Every structure is written in C-alpha cells, then in structure tokens.
C-alpha cells in the first residue's frame, strides 16, 4: 500500500492544486509544495530503515529478496493484469530522486509560472506521479500505463508554458515518445501472447514473464526475442535519448519552462535508462547480449556526438540539453556492458546526472527569466553582477565535466572501468568524452559567468541574484551531488541487490518471492 499511497498523494495533490487555482492563482504552488512534502515525509519514513541499513551493508529485502515493498491486487483479471507495485533498491533510489527533484522543479516554477498556475501544478504533480509509477510498476501493462500517463501532462507543460517555439517542440516530444511507446506496447503484447501460447493464460506480471524467459524450454526463440527486445529498446532509447533518436530532446528542453526542463532532464530521461535496466537486460538476456555491441556503439556515438554538438551551441539551454545526450551515452554503455561495475556506474550516473542537469537547467532557466535571453553571446561577466548564481553555475558545470569528488565522476569512471573488460575499443573511445566535456563546461564558465559583460547586459537594468528560496533548493542539490561523489558506497549498497538479479535473474527466484 505504501507505493499506492505515495502515487495517489501526487495524483490527488494535482487535482487539489487545480481546484485551488480557481480560488487564487497563488494558492496552487502551496498546495503542490504541501503534496510533495507530505509524499517525501510519508515515503521517506517508510524508507528510513532500509536507508539506515544501506549505510554500512546491503540491506536485505523484506521478503528475503531484493524487494522492499510490494503491493498486488487484480486490475483486469481477464488479461491477467495486476495493479502490482514494488520497489527494490534501484526503484527506491530513483523514487527518492523523483520526489527530491519535484521539489526543485517546484522551486523553479514558484515565481516563473503566473498564468494558469492551477493547471500547471496539476500537470507537474501528475508527471511526478507518472514517473513514480514507472519506477514502481511490476506489471508490464501498468508500466506502460504510467509511461503514457506521464506524457500528457508533460506535453501540456511544454506547449502551454514554454517559450517561443513551444508548440512544435511539444508535438515533436509527444510524437517521438508516443510512437516508440506504441512499439513497446506491441512488444509487450507479443511477449505476453507468446507466454500465453506456452502456458495457456494471459499474464502481464513481471516475475511470471521473467521466470518464463529463464526456463530453457519456455523462453522465446532467439529471433523473436531479438524483435521483441527491439520494441522495448527503441522506446527506451528514444526516451534516454541515444543518437539517432535524440532530435526531440534539444527542442523540448529548450522550449520547456524551467520546471519542465528540470523534470525532463532529471527524471524523464532516467525512465528510459530504468527501462533498459529493469526490462531489456533481464527479460532478454541472450538477445541483449547479442545486441550489446550495437547498443554500446550507440552509447559511444551519443557521448561523442552529444559533446561535440554541445560545444557548437549558442543557446545555453540547448547546450545543456546536448550535454545530457552525451552523459546518457555513458548509461547506455554501462547497461549493455552488463558487468556489475558498469551497472553500478550507470546507476550512479543516473542519479548524479539527474541532480546536476536539474541544477544546470534550473540555473539556465533562472537566467532566462532574468535576462530574457538564452543566447550565450548576450551573457558574460555575470559573476560580477549575480555572484551567487554564477558560483552555483560554475560549481555544476564542473560537476558536469566530471570533477573527482562530485557524483558524475564516480558514475562515469565506474562505467568506463566496468566496460573496459567487455569492450576495450569502445571504452577507449568513450573515454574521449571525458576530454570533450571539459571543453563545453569551460565554455559555459568562460562565456557566461566570466569575461566582459556583453553589450546586451550593459543596458543597465538590474538583475536579481538568487533569492533565498532558490538558494535553499540549490543548496540541497549541492549537498546531494557532493555526498554522491564523496561517499557513493551507501547508494551502491542500496542498489546492489537489484543489480545482482539484473545480471543473474535466476537469483531472484532462489528465495521465494513473498507476494
């Protein structure tokens, strides 16, 4: 029930915020804050025992396996569809990240969204609910359900509160995700139907389908497995995104309002990575292995191409968007390298990138809000006028370039260590990304925060520095990214049991599942 309540609070909070908006435009943000805080407290206090354990050791799951909470009830019994929710270490970490970044997004939206605020916060909370649902679903139908639910509010956020070219960007985002999502639905149904042919009954249950794929005689034939896996893979790599499916991302990020960019970069991209880890690798071990070189190559291309394009951008938000593509390449590389080390790295990268890109977008968004431009040529010398913003901007640019001691460094290095044993050539190429990222990161630092103020800025109007609200939200992000960089072991402890079974799904069935 824990998870169901966690998700429901966000859904209900969204409707509540909408209703509050009809009374007064300033109320919805308080409603949204309240909903997210209640959710953090509620979900957080349930997680405390697990988190305490994971500081020093791997926490055992409540059922003697890696799952901490789970909840199952019938939904559409005719198709064997259950309302099955559960979290293991991986989901738990990502759910906490979701709620945390929800707070950050709320802080970015606080003063920026003045029009139709009730509907905005409704969309914000429903997106968060969809993301939490994705990270917690143990039924493929339910997973798809949440996968789609998250889309519509995000579409509204971009297309109604976005910038000059918002309609086009939102449409592109929606169509890319929806069409690839339908391919995934196709793949899910094919998988389920195959299982039905074997066993005579429909089920969308994750564990049943997983155990089916593990037994020698019942698993999919090699060729069908490859096709079905391709359906999942496509949906997840569009969301991730990996080159060549990345073209929606720069547009969507650039055009979205700040809170939208924060959620997109921090959370929505992670749902793709999560899908790869949770579904593609365990469900299709052989096919994923066969396909790994292709996927890893895509990852490396994303790293290099994303970094190169990032450097070429004049638009600050667009630049950060391309760096996201580059960083997500590491995740693709790590997931398909399929060694424990690389997977740990991929997950740390997910969390670290979630935090650092959210922070960078929050900063870029606040700059746009203050300067009314995203063009880097129009900036410069900001550290003199707005020192707090500039300091934070520099800090997170450095985090993004992979400075040791900050989260991103751990993620990228672990991925490279892990992948080297599997595919040295691709890993060497990927390591070039570590050279390219300082180039664009330093470009941000030099051109935006240092140097001479541009003619655009000299026209004299006063720019406000970060307010105390923004400083609090930034401080939280700073603490999080330093903690990840200095002491990543608790997180590794937390997610490790989950990774063990990703690499060796058999282990999940050794200790009987409790639900």
């Amino acid at each position, binding site marked *: 029930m824990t998870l169901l309540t966690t998700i429901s609070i966000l859904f209900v909070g969204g409707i509540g915020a909408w209703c509050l908006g009809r009374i007064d435009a300033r109320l919805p943000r308080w409603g949204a804050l309240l909903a997210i805080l209640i959710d953090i407290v509620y979900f957080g206090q349930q997680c405390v025992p697990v988190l305490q354990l994971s500081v020093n050791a791997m926490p055992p799951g409540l059922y003697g396996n890696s799952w901490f909470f789970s909840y199952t009830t019938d939904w559409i019994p*005719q198709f064997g569809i259950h309302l099955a929710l559960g979290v293991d270490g991986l989901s738990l970490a990502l759910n906490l990240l979701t709620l945390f970044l929800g707070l950050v997004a709320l802080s970015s939206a606080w003063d920026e969204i003045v029009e139709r605020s009730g509907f905005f916060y409704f969309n914000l909370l429903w997106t968060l609910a969809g993301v939490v649902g994705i990270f917690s679903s143990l039924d493929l139908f339910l997973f798809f359900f949440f996968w789609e639910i998250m889309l519509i509010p995000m*579409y*509204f956020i971009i*297309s109604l509160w976005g910038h000059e070219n918002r309609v086009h960007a939102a*449409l592109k985002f*929606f169509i890319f995700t929806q069409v690839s999502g339908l*391919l995934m639905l*196709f793949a899910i*149904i094919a998988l389920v*139907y195959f299982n039905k042919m074997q066993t005579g009954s429909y089920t969308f249950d994750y564990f049943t389908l997983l155990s089916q794929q593990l037994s020698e005689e019942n698993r999919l034939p090699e060729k069908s497995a490859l096709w079905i896996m391709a359906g999942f893979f496509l949906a997840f790599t569009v969301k991730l995104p990996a080159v060549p499916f990345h073209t929606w991302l720069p547009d969507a990020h650039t055009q979205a309002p700040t809170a939208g960019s924060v959620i997109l970069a921090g959370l929505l991209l992670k749902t793709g990575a999560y899908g790869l880890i949770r579904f593609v690798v365990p469900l299709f071990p052989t096919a994923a292995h066969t396909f790994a070189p292709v996927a890893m190559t895509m990852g490396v291309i994303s790293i290099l191409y994303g970094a190169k394009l990032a450097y070429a951008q004049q638009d600050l938000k667009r630049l950060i968007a391309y760096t996201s593509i580059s960083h997500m390449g590491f995740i693709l590389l790590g997931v398909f390298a399929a060694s424990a080390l690389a997977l740990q790295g991929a997950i740390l990268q997910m969390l670290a990138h979630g935090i650092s890109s959210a922070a960078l977008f929050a900063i870029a968004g606040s700059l746009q809000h203050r300067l009314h431009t995203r063009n880097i040529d129009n900036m410069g010398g900001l550290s003199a006028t707005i020192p707090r913003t500039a300091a934070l901007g520099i800090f997170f640019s450095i985090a993004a370039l992979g400075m040791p001691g900050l989260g991103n460094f751990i993620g990228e290095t672990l991925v490279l260590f892990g992948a080297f044993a599997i595919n040295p050539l691709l890993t060497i190429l990927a390591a070039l990304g570590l050279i390219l990222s300082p180039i664009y990161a330093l470009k941000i630092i030099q051109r935006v925060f240092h140097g001479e103020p541009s003619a655009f800025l000299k026209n004299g109007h006063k720019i406000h520095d970060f307010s105390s609200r923004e400083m609090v939200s930034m401080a939280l992000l700073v603490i999080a990214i330093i903690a990840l960089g200095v002491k990543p072991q608790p997180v590794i402890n937390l997610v490790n049991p989950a990774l063990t079974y990703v690499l060796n799904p058999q282990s999940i069935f050794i200790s009987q599942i409790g639900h």
Partner: protein
Amino acid sequence: MHIDLEQLIAVLPIISLTTFSVIVMLCAAFYRRHALIAGLTFFGIVFSLACVYLQSGSSAVAVTSLLMIDRFSCFFTALILVTTAVITLFCYTYFKAREGLQEELYILLLTATVGAVVLVSSAHFASFFLGLEILSVSLFAMVAYPVTSLTHSDHSASTPLEAGIKYLILSGISSAMLALGMAFIFAATSTMDIVAIGKSLSVVNHGYYVIAGVAMMISGIGFKLSLVPFHMWTPDVYQGAPAPVTAFLATISKSAMLALVLRGFILLEGFRYDAIVWGVSIIAIASMLGGNLLALKQNNIKRLLAYSSISHSGYILVAFLSVMSAVSDTAHPDQIAMEAVTYYIVTYVLTTLTAFGVISVLSSANLNLKETRDIDHFDDFQGLYWRRPVVASVFTLALLSSAGIPLTIGFIGKFYIFAAGVSSALWTLLAVLIVGSGIGLFYYLRLILALFKTDSAEDSVQKAIYAVSANDTIALPLGSRWLITALGGLILLLGIYPTPLIAVIRGMVQSLYP
C-alpha cells in the same frame, strides 16, 4: 408461419420501438409540443431497453428465418438504444434553441433506430437489406432536417439539404451495389439465409460469382462504414447535418453495420478467400492512413472528426481481419479478436457520441446569436477551457480517447486491437496502425492545445469573425452539462476499470460458441 410467445418477447424491443414511432407520429399530428414529443421518444427508447433486458437472460431465439435474437443482438440493441436515448436528449437541447417544426425529427429518430435494431438482429439478407433501408431512408430526412433560427427565419437551411442529397444519392448507389452483391451470392448458393450461405460456401467452391458478390457487398458496406475509398461523402455529410444527427450517423449507423458484419463473419464460418482478405487489408491500410492524413488539415471540427472516424473504421478492420483468421482456425478458436471488435465498437460509440455531444451542446447555447450554424469551427474552440471548463475537459477526454491515450476507454480499445492483431500475427497492419496513430496525434493534440490556449493578439482577428467565441458565456443548460460530464466520466471509468465491460463482452462472445 407461426410465432409463439417466446419469439414475441424476443422481438418486443422492435415492436415497442415501432409502436412508439406511431404513437409519437399521432401525438405530433394532434398536439405539437416539443418537450412532450421528446419526452415520449425518450420514454419509448427506455421502455424498449427494458424489453431488451427481459430477453437478455434467455437463450438464442430465431424469429422466422429473418431475425436471430441472442445475446449478441441484445448487446448491440442495448448499445444502440442507450446511445439513441442520449442522442434524444442532445436533440432536445439542440432543437429547442431553434425554430421550426422539430417534432418530426423524433419520428425519424425512432424509425432509424428500428432499422438499426433490425440490422443487428438480422440473420438473412432480406432483413439485412430491410433494416439497412429503414435506417438509411430515415437518415436522408434527418440529415437534411431544416434548421432555422429562432429570431432570423431568412437563414437558408441549404447546408443540411446539400448534405442530405449527397447522402441520398451515394447511399442509394451503395444500396444498389449491396443488393446486386446479394443477388450474385444468391445466384451461386440459391439461399439468402446467412447460416445456409456459410454452409454452402464451406462445402462447394462457387468461384467468381461469390467473390464478385462479396466484393460488391464490401463496397456497399464500406460506404456505410465510410472506409477509404468509399469515404468521400463522410466529411461533407458530417459537416452539413445538424450536430445531433451527425452524432447518430457516426455512432448508430456505423455500429449497427459493424455488428452485422461481425455476425456475418461468425455465421459464415470458414468464409475465407485470399482475394477478399487482401482486399479488406488494403482497405484497412488505406482507411487508417487516408483518414488520419486527411484529418491533418481540417479546420472544421466536424470534418476533422469525420476523417478521424474513417481512420477508426480502419482500426476496427484490423480486428476484423484478425477475426477472419481466428474463425478459420477452428483448432483453437481465439475469441479475443471478436472481443476486440466489440470492445472497440463500444469505445468508438462512446467517444464519438461524447465528441459530437459536446458540439451539439455548445451549438444549442448560441440561441441569442441570431444564427443557426453549429459551433464546429476550429476557432470556436480556441481557449474553450477558460470559458467552459467542464465541457472542454470532457472534450479533451474524448479526443484523448480517440487518440488512444491511457486513462481513457480508447486506450483499452487500442490495446484490445493490438492484442487481437498480435494473436493473428498481422504485423504489417499493426505497423500501419502505429504509423496511423502517430499521424493522428498531430491533429488531436493541435485541437486539445487550442482548447487550453489563452487568447493572444494573433487570434483577435479570428475572434472578430467568429464572434461566438467571445460571446458564448451563456450558461449551458444544467441537464446537458450533467449529461456531458457523465459521458466523460464513463470514458474515464471504462479506461481505468474496464473489467466489468470486458466480462460482459466475453460472456456475450462465448455464448456464440456453443
């Protein structure tokens, strides 16, 4: 010919509908009161629905060789009657706001419903044709029903008339094709009973006679279902007819025909010619792509919905093709395809009814605007949410449901079609379905976005032309607001918890396979 009590009860819904259409006619002749006539019609439909309920529990009854009353026909009769009841309510608010002699519309509404009910119960070419003609002839007059303003009577009622004539001519041709097709099949099998035809076809290969006959019947049926390339009339007629009539045309006329075709597939067991399967596949692909592509550039919402309904017919055909391969595969009769068709029909009817219901409710609010046109232009919907939040939200739900987005019934319907397609390995068709849905998103999202847009400077020119947008702050009748909300609620409910409906449909489908 002898008809016993059991059979009489079985056809009670048809008898009651016929009786009520006579009562309504007599009543209208002597005492013209719009509210009374509408109420009487509504009562007649609800009464007939009660008759269906009486019958629904019992086993299949063949009433002469013409009609077959079983759970299948009861299900679709109930669907038709419920839909008609809702449409009656829409008609009432819509025509109340307009001048003229509105009472006759309800007679036509009842007779058209009789035709539809006969259609879904028919087991014989004769009753098929009769039902279709009763339905079509009533629709000719309904489509062309004159709509005049309360204040300005000089407005021409030309658009409905044009639409009516278009529908009359094309429908006449399609009926002729259908009749000729039937004649061919009759010539080959020397029977008009659908079960007997099925038997005859499975025993003897009749060759080209049957293929030619079926091809002609498909074109006749394709017209009613507005499949590409028989779709030309659809946008014009949908646009021209008064909104509630369009709702009737899009829901009842289509679903009754779909139900009949579905029954035909079941009864004509083993009915399978490669040429036909190919033909139907091509029609399905053309409808899915054509409907969606043509909808992209529409600025009239009724036209847009017309093209969208063409593409939905294409989606249903995918499930039909799956029924085809499932029926022929007698080793394990997979009923999922049949369920998929039925579920999608319900989905389509509910979604379309809601969408056209919104248009007709909005159009009934412009009574003091001295014009009778329907609120169906794209600009009428700009920023509708900020003026009429409830109606706009429900309209959004209907559009999302058309697009097959979760939380709405449309998603479950699409899921069902996917499941059916996968079970019959119709990969190409499913790929086209995905592409079609992708294209569909463009216009659905464009419209949804328009609903939520705030007014900006660039719209103000349009606003001047469509003064209605600014002016429609008149409160909608409470009843129709509730009705719209209820329909929206149903879309959500069946999208989130479809279990009961699936159970009903599964029970109905299973009863067809003894």
